[in-house]
């Protein structure tokens, strides 16, 4: 086992909201050709049939104020370009503008779905992606919205759900937090504050309040060397007054929340670990997005192992059942640790030897690392790849790793 894994005591996952890989990191390919981003020639037809190319003109706020559709039928349109379900249809990633325009955005505004950020505009994400490991092939678990995708990060399945509805756990599958605690390990979900609260299965909050903490508790746990073995961090989901009369901005990067505030939140989380030497050397931080939020990505989501559930046609809204046998659209995912060599790129579908990741890899990896042989993992978890593989034997010197001044 590499020294990076031998010394690993903590895994921290920060899950942001609703941005695709190309939108956030696609512009990096010009400087870092191993990153499977954008050439600039990728395009989609608009409602007039005019081909519209990707543009490096993404704005921090005010551009996607009409929340782009990312429900199951909308994502189906984005992936298959409007070809209805049936044998032989081919995914082509040609329906993004059609999908956005169908929300009544108008022709010109619908082109914004093809926008991406120039790397200089996202200094934090760019720095982390180029200084540590970026995954070319990390996909959301379902071509659908937030709640069912986040469920994969907690349970390794969404129990057959493809929508935003609250679901009740009826199977014997435990969340990763319950598994850890039951086995005598430590795990916590840190939500930002009470006003923002949690997106993570209200049932857990109701029945297992001990596995929750606030973000200020996360900072205190980093400072006090009391961080659990596994931590899952939620950003702030809404703008609201602060406890001292100030203003708390949403930091989730969900359109139309300010993307720069999300950058600051990622930087703060990184700093909390980075500036404590012992913690820094024993922690792996994964920054990942729950789903693409309806925003363009050029990589076709691959088929995957079905998890044994099926969503009926009435639930998918496409006129066809879904057997959980195709992943959702690609999202940014970055692994941070001083044991990760600078500029690591984990190849994805563009490489015959590439590796596919999805959110079931989170409980899958955490379970394998801390609990070893745990039989009750879901099918997707059992088939998932370990996201800690970029950790090596070599510890980078302290003055080789950046700190953010937030």
């Amino acid at each position, binding site marked *: 086992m590499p020294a990076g894994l031998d010394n690993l005591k903590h895994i921290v996952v920060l899950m942001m909201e609703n941005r695709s890989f190309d939108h956030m990191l696609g512009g990096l390919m010009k400087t870092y050709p191993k990153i499977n981003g954008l050439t600039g020639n990728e395009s989609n037809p608009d409602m007039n049939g005019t081909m519209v190319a990707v543009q490096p003109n993404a704005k921090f706020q005010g551009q996607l104020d009409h929340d782009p559709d990312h429900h199951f039928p909308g994502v189906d349109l984005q992936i298959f370009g409007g070809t209805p379900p049936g044998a032989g249809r081919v995914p082509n990633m040609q329906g993004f503008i059609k999908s956005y325009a169908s929300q009544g955005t108008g022709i010109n505004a619908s082109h914004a779905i093809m926008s991406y950020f120039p790397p200089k505009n996202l200094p934090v994400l760019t720095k982390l992606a180029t200084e540590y490991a970026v995954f070319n092939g990390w996909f959301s678990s379902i071509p659908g919205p937030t709640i069912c995708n986040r469920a994969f990060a907690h349970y390794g399945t969404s129990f057959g759900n493809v929508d935003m509805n609250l679901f009740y756990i009826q199977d014997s599958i435990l969340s990763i937090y319950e598994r850890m605690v039951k086995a005598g390990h430590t795990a916590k979900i840190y939500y930002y504050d009470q006003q923002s609260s949690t997106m993570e299965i209200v049932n857990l909050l109701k029945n297992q309040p001990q596995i*929750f903490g606030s973000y200020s508790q996360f900072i205190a746990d980093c400072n006090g060397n009391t961080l659990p073995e596994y931590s899952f961090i939620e950003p702030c989901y809404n703008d609201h007054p602060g406890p001292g009369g100030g203003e708390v901005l949403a930091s989730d990067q969900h359109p139309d929340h300010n993307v720069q505030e999300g950058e600051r939140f990622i930087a703060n989380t990184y700093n909390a670990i980075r500036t404590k030497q012992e913690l820094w050397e024993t922690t792996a931080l994964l920054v990942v997005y729950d789903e693409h939020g309806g925003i363009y990505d050029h990589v076709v989501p691959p088929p995957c192992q079905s998890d044994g559930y099926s969503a009926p046609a009435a639930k998918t809204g496409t006129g066809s059942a879904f057997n959980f046998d195709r992943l959702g659209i690609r999202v940014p995912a970055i692994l941070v640790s001083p044991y990760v060599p600078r500029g690591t790129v984990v190849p994805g579908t563009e490489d015959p030897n590439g590796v596919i990741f999805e959110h079931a890899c989170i409980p899958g990896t955490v379970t394998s690392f801390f609990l070893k042989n745990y039989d009750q993992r879901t099918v997707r978890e059992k088939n998932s790849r370990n996201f800690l593989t970029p950790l090596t034997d070599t510890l980078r010197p302290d003055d080789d790793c950046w*700190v953010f001044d937030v």
Partner: protein
Amino acid sequence: MKTKYKLVMKVPKPPKSAYDHGRFISQLIENQIKHFHEVEKSLLKPGQKLTHVSKIKTELEASKYLKKMTALLHPHGAEKPQKAAKRRTIKKNVKARKAKSRKKPKPSKRRRK
């Protein structure tokens, strides 16, 4: 920070205009509220009234409801009100200053003596 670390990067702040708690809630927050409402229903005691969540339109209104429900389910997550804490400190400081000023005349009296 610059003196302690060799590689430091400044992170830009969003403009003040980025804040808007009057923004209409997204479907994500709408669903988050629905989930909490389901829990609220299950916890309802005789005589208690359910919150009219359909009236929640803005992020500020959402944050107030979420705070109420989260405080109920997870009271440990409460933030300490910073302003109140500061006031307490100020009051203590004022008391300390008053006490000091009360003590000061004594030596001067002694000197007079």
